[in-house]
């Protein structure tokens, strides 16, 4: 694991500067012979990875604009993910890890505002609107039904709905 990770980190370090200098085409082998190396199993601990993904998708990638650490391909985000994975393996809880990032970056790094204080507006206003709207809609529908009853008694011969 750690060997692979270091490779990634190293490779990431090398491609960034490669941007400034055009990649010399000759530096890379044009066609490498596919050998018959054995198939390796992907490093995959589904439970841990799911936890990493969950945490990383709630943190904002600091070098990008409006992308989560999980979704960003940038080197910084990759390393943040490594850090999260490492800390989880070391037994830290997701809350502790989140608290660490908030401690260093501020509340800005959370993609989901914490439900406290003024932040309640962003969580509660939509719910209030929906609840109020539901009440309003039901009242309107009831008023229309009453209108229907009133008209039915007034004009028994006219059943046409368009007769307004």
């Amino acid at each position, binding site marked *: 694991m750690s060997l692979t990770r270091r490779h990634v*980190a*190293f490779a*990431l*370090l*090398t491609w*960034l*500067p490669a*941007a*400034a200098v055009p990649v010399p085409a000759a530096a890379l082998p044009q066609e490498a012979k596919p050998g018959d190396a054995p198939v390796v199993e992907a490093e995959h601990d589904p439970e841990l990875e799911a936890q990493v993904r969950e945490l990383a998708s709630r943190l904002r990638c*600091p*070098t990008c604009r409006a992308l989560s650490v999980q979704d960003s391909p940038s*080197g*910084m985000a990759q*390393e*943040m993910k*490594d*850090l999260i994975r490492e800390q989880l393996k070391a037994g830290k809880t997701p809350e502790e890890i989140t608290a660490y*990032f908030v*401690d*260093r*970056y*501020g509340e*800005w790094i959370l993609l989901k505002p914490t439900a406290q204080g003024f932040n309640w507006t962003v969580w509660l206003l939509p719910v209030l609107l929906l609840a109020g709207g539901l009440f309003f809609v039901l009242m309107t529908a009831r008023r229309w039904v009453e209108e229907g009853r009133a008209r039915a008694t007034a004009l028994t011969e006219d059943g046409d709905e368009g007769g307004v």
Partner: protein
Amino acid sequence: MFKKILIPAAVTLPVVALLYYGMQRDVRTIESPLPGRMAFDFTAPTLAGDTLSLSDLEGQVVVLNFWASWCIACIDEHRVFIEADRYYADQDFQMLGVVYQDSPENARRWMRQRGGEWPSVIDPNSRIAIDYGVYGVPETYFISKDGYIAYKHIGPVTPQVMVKWVDRLLAEDRGAELTATDGDVPEGRSQGHVRQAPDVPVTTPESGGGRP
């Protein structure tokens, strides 16, 4: 009649006011929670090949600068650092670079090309950068003699910022009270990380005010 104007205005004004406020604010600078707190210690290999700890530099004002060879804005501030390094040479002042998302070879070549005698540490897993809440380069922390982060500067450091903070920190032994929150705002809006900074003429910071 009054109502007829009041309702549209009552709906429109808050929206427009909010958007207007939004246009005034600077989306790119994010207040760091770090100023006023102890600087986090780290031990890391330097470009020169030895090992350096931040705690070794206690008793000195440290300007901790995150940079990379691929960062265009870093070129401008590098000239400021060279001047400052020379100007504060006999005082308790130490420049310290952290190489961010870059290979040691590229970083070494860059320093050779542009000069500068101070050490830079390598941060291969970006752990130092994450610890310091770095968004991108260049970002610079001004650390007091007793190890407090007094101020974080996002974007290229200008001579004015450099002189102001280093002078203050040199004059003060205790850094805890000296934070950006004591009524000081950074001069001007800081630049985006990637974008080229406007050309700031590098002056010898004699005229720099604030020297007590």
